[in-house]
């Protein structure tokens, strides 16, 4: 299936929600560790959920470039784009 940037962003936020305390605001600039309090174990669970949702493989190295919710969405869209599954 083909994704749009907007739908990727929405989906990423949906996947992150269960890992975040109810009263925490989730935005594109939220820092995964500092703002959302997701620890290294939680991050790997999120990665597994993202891989399942977007049918992608996210290598461990890619995590070093990820700080914020926006970075997550970007990492996903870049990979979808490379596979021709992103509608511009």
């Amino acid at each position, binding site marked *: 299936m083909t994704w749009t940037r907007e739908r990727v962003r929405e989906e990423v936020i949906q996947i992150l929600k269960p890992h975040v305390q109810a009263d925490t605001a989730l935005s594109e600039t939220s820092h995964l560790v*500092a703002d959302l309090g997701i620890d*290294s*174990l939680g991050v*790997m669970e999120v990665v597994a959920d993202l891989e399942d949702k977007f049918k992608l493989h996210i290598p*461990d190295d890619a995590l070093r*470039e*990820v700080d914020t919710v926006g970075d997550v969405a970007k990492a996903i869209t870049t990979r979808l784009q490379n596979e021709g599954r992103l509608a511009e």
Partner: protein
Amino acid sequence: MSSVFSPRTVVQAIEDAAKSTQTGYRFIGEEGGAEPFFSHAGIERASARFGGALQSLGLQKGDRVALILPDNADFVFAFLGALRAGVIPVPIYPPTGLGKLAGYLDNTLHIVERSGAKVLVTSAEIRRLLGTVQSRAPELEKVADVETLKALREELKPVQVGLDDICFLQFTSGSTSRPKGVVLTHANIAENVHVIMDLGLKAQSFDNGVSWLPLYHDMGLIGFVLAPLFHVNSITFLPPLLFLKRPARWLEQMSRQKATISFGPNFAYALCNKRIKDSELEGLDLSSWRVAGCGAEPIRAENLRAFAERFGRVGFSEKAFVACYGMAESTLAVSFSPVGKGLLVDQVDGQALWSAGKAEPVGEGAERAAPVVGCGPAFDRHDIGVFAESDAESLTPLGERTVGELRLRGPSVMRGYWNDAELTREAFAGGWLKTGDIGYIAEGNVYICGRSKEVIIVNGRNYYPQDLEWEASRVEGVRKGNVIAFGTMKPTHDRERVIIALETSVPEGEGRETLKGDVRKAVQQALGLTVDDVVPVDAGVLPKTSSGKLQRAKTRELYENGDLLARTSIRRSDKVEVVKEVVKSQIGYFRHAILGGRKDQP
């Protein structure tokens, strides 16, 4: 199995095992990748080549080489290659990313400097991340790319390695200001491998293991890289991050290899309970699994029972659980519960345990019953003693079922910390190693109740409260030096909850809510762990000793019984007391900043 134990160096063990072409290491990569297998003959050759490559960099017997290698196969061969060249490897954990790079670099630099490593071997990618480490560590001559070393075809020049030579330095995750390098000799390794494999696990030639444990940690490195070399057993390695991402991969490999032995901390079993879907159980057969070791963090019987219940239907037996007590300062293993018997749980009166330090047996289901998991008896020629923490010479062992500090003696105990006579002296009391763990002995079995060192363990990783406190102290609005961080298991959770209590002059209301958020953010950002609760209180509320030292255990107790929140402003009227407390705590802050604190990032 040999009846008489004759110690060998790891180097000798590698050479002896090389006769076998059937057994060896299998390395599982990230999803869908290759799964190379190295027979013990192949391990001998690959490690010899790596040893030769390290020698070609000018490394000689006794030199240190730091290893930051996230790939399991790279790490194993670099490590074993160094041993064969007589070079002392210093494993360092790789960066996990996610915004903690500054702290990571700081810690890495400390270890490189303290070990005096001449060469650091790493991947090209991590080398870029490390940036200026080389210029900041004066003794470090070279940062070498692992790919380049692997391509070299250098002959290993034979080096005499004896049992009393240092095998490697195991840096423990101490408070970031002072990582401590445990010195282990080949004799330490040989002795501990003997107690693990012969006495503890009663390992046979048919045994084979699966491990996702990080190899820069003692349980993964000694338990699954070194011990199987001595006993010529096969091991399948999974990347640690793959396990954290897809815990089912662990059990799939157990099933596929018909593996008999695997180990994990408590959280690993809890993670399987939580994350593995029923659909992933299909086709699994765990009936060969005879030793499911559990160690490295407090063991919670209910997590393990839930695991056994869930995976019993694919052949897992609750009898496979072996509760383990261990620490890097004693090479790895201190004691194991007996193989094939399942968990040994002591039901004791929880109140008597904590208030009177007595482990009084009560019936299961009794109102104050607290379950404590037994970790078996001390191994042959090794002793576990219980002493009052104040017993500086270990003169008076405490009696049966009396709670005290556990102390160790025997051939697995380290010589000391690398280049640190002071820390080494502090680590021993009258010839016994002070573990910092609190426990008791009943009918010869050791029971661990907690830690006097106040380490917070989350998902198998140690966090020192001082580091959390230091980060929180730097937040605007927090009274410097008046922060207490601690972990609590109450209310019952499958992991420790991380709590930070702090004093502030910010009045109750919105300002404090903002402060809570700021503290949470600062600590999470710096240390990469989840802070569960931040409790701001008025000045003078946190309990301190007469010398101004913050009382962490007392604060935890107040938090757990709800009194801390009730006390947030209890002393508001008592101005004199408050002033006295303020003066005392400032002294504490400066002591921490000058003597015990971490350095600021340059």
